[in-house]
């Protein structure tokens, strides 16, 4: 497996401020990797360093086997965090311009621009100036500009921000289209659902440090499994079990309605605990259950767990 990207102990200082702290990870070809973290975690800085737009203070970055992304810039696509296009340029011409900067001939670039605009439903805007586009359309156009040269490796900084659900889906579609052709995608986001749906892999950063790197199932294993039960009986016996880490009532205000005096409880289980044995134990203890739910933690919960209070702010995005 050849590495598309390899970071080793990458550190970046802005003056005295340490924006990125000893970050290392690598990315295999053909993977979709989510790059997660709250605001100010150092994601954008890391992405810019990967692209060699800015230089790391220390550490090495290898992209497609080269020490600088600029050497292989034709094989990389980049969508920056802040979205903007040349206002007066025609839509097709913007896409074609960026494609020529990535090495396509002008003829091929024009052809490709029209092809992409048609495929993603923007053909009618091809000869309009980009300031005639809505924000969402503009963002899609920028995405198309980033991938017009069919790069092997695409870096997307917050591709979903500011898009309505329909356009978010289109964006996901574009990303899936790419991975179906064995392209590698590294994208940063705040929205865990996208990461959950798309990613093979996530890298989580906070305060400049990498705090998690692995697959989504691996991430979910970080936080305890949970079981939610509803009963009007005393659940004290459950507390006593060694595989139950904690029992806490579900917040009533949170919308969990009590019926006929029953209360809802959330049980956190030890890592290798079997929920079935809890169910069986309840029967044995004659605890009458109105409901029994075993649920996987969401990536968002993992995120909150790992990042802590900082994640609150990010979670609302």
């Amino acid at each position: 497996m050849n590495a598309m990207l390899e970071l080793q102990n990458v550190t970046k200082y802005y003056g005295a401020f340490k924006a990125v702290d000893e970050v290392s990870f690598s990315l295999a070809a053909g993977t979709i990797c989510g790059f997660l973290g709250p605001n100010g975690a150092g994601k954008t800085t890391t992405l810019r360093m990967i692209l060699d737009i800015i230089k790391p203070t220390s550490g090495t970055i290898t992209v497609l086997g080269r020490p600088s992304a600029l050497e292989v810039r034709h094989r990389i696509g980049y969508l920056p965090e802040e979205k903007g296009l040349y206002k007066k340029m025609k839509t097709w011409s913007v896409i074609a311009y960026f494609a020529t900067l990535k090495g396509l001939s002008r003829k091929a670039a024009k052809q490709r621009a029209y092809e992409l605009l048609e495929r993603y439903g923007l053909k009618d805007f091809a000869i309009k100036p980009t300031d005639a586009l809505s924000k969402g359309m503009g963002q899609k156009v920028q995405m198309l500009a980033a991938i017009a040269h069919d790069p092997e490796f695409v870096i997307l900084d917050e591709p979903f921000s500011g898009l309505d659900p329909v356009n978010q889906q289109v964006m996901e579609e574009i990303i899936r289209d790419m991975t179906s052709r064995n392209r590698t995608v590294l994208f940063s986001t705040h929205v865990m659902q996208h990461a959950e749906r798309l990613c093979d892999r996530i890298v989580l950063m906070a305060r400049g440090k990498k705090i998690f790197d692995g697959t989504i199932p691996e991430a979910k294993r970080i936080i305890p499994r949970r079981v939610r039960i509803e009963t009007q009986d005393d659940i004290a016996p459950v507390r006593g079990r060694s595989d139950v880490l904690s029992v806490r009532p579900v917040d009533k205000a949170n919308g969990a309605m009590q019926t006929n005096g029953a209360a809802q409880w959330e049980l956190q289980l030890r890592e290798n605990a079997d929920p079935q044995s809890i169910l069986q134990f309840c029967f044995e203890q004659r605890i009458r259950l109105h409901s029994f739910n075993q649920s996987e933690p969401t990536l968002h919960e993992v995120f909150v767990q790992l990042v802590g209070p900082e994640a609150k702010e990010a979670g609302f995005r």
Partner: protein
Amino acid sequence: MKYTALVARREYVENARTKGFWIGLLTFPIVIFLMIQVPVWLTEKVAPIRAFVLVDESGRFEKLIESALEKAHQQRVLEALREYAARNVTRSVRSAGAKRELNLPAELDEINEQNAQALETFINHGGAENVLKQLKPWLKPGAPAFSEPRRRFVRVPLPVGIGGNEDASDGKGLSLVASAATSSSNLDLAVLGRELKPYLRGQKKVEVDGRAVELSAAILIPRDIEQKVVRPGAGSPSAQSRGPAIEYWSANVAEGGAGLKDEAERAVNGEIRRREYLARGMDAAVIREVEHTYAPFASLNPKKEAGQETVNLGDKLKQWAPSGFVYLLWVAIFSVTQMLLGNIIEEKSNRIIEVLLSSVTPGELMMGKLFGIAAVGLTLITAWMLSLFGILSWKAGGVSDVAGQLLAVLKTSNLLPLFSLYFLLGYLLYAGLILSLGSVCNTLKEAQSYMGIITMIMMVPLLTMTYIPTDPNGVVARLLSWVPIYTPFTMMNRAAADPPLIDLIGTLVLLVASTVGVLWMAGKIFRIGILRTGQPPKIVEMLRWVRG
């Protein structure tokens, strides 16, 4: 290099498509066209007929004034003829020898303000008609017909109902004047003056060739003019005690009407002096000869080659044309660097810059912009120069002498090559400053506050633009020439005055060196500044970037 070219191409195409560019491109030829055409229109068509009345109670000066005006008119006809001949006679007969052979009127070459002889010969030999007859075989094919200049002053009869002119049924205007002057001998000039006032103020109109026009002037000469003549010497009454002899009434003394007054005054006083000579016993023939005696004067320029030192319109144009070019230079550099600033700010403010920098290096991006916008500027000034040549060549053959002369100046001087050179160097120097500025600002508003300072510094050449040609190798001009940011403008301004070689070469070397320096510095600042967000850095910090 390929990417520099791609960036440059986009900059060129996108900026050359803007409305501002086309407005700038087209404004210049329109202004030039109007500058040349409007005076022509004014003299040909729009210039008002200046109508005047002349009442001579003494009956002694009327004919004299009329003939003086006629002479002035004939002089203008002669001048027009000379220009016409110069332009429309085939080249082969222009030499003096050929002219004699052809019996072309010598007065064509000899008239000037004081050579009354030549003018008289011209009039006595049948005027324009005769000259045109002689010229005819030698005219170039397709030469336009000669159009005589219009008379500047037209004498009209006293308006009906004034000064005893009750007879409106006659209809023959001019004869009425004659009768007013001779038969109605007891006209009161004071009353007449009062009655004419509404006409002179423009409240009432007089009729000329069926058109109602304003009466521009009235000349009233009293019967007792002889008693009012002021003579030096004892016993003679002073001018104050007698009051004015001749009244010249006009609402607009400053305008062309003044010419009428001068002509009338010269005619009347000339005649009075002539009579005085006669009264003192001089021979009429002698007086005539004395009057026609003069020493020809010519303005000569020591810098021109021997035999061609005559100062003419071309020389004046040559002196002032550089100022025009300074202005063009300024406008071109200013507008083009504004484009540059706008572009950088656009890319910076919506972060297109990041996409660009993931594709090209900051160096390639900067050079691409520099060259792309330079191409826009060159297109602009090339279009200007071509249209200037076009309009001048078009107009040179016809009515405008200025156009022809200007064209000759442009063709024979080094103004155009210098203009292109100084545009390029000046642009690169200012572009370097603007690139540094643009790269550290995030919004256009932010940039404009700094741009104000640059604009103010740039204003200096505009302020000295008209002063420098009057003293092109003086201290101010030389001093400014050695300040690199002013070198292009000041040296352009001095271009026609043959500045010392040390100035020409020295300032050029200094300018090139500082341009290279500024661009090198701009490269350093651009690389770091372009990715910066937030407050623009302090100068000290920028200096650190340059050093680091």
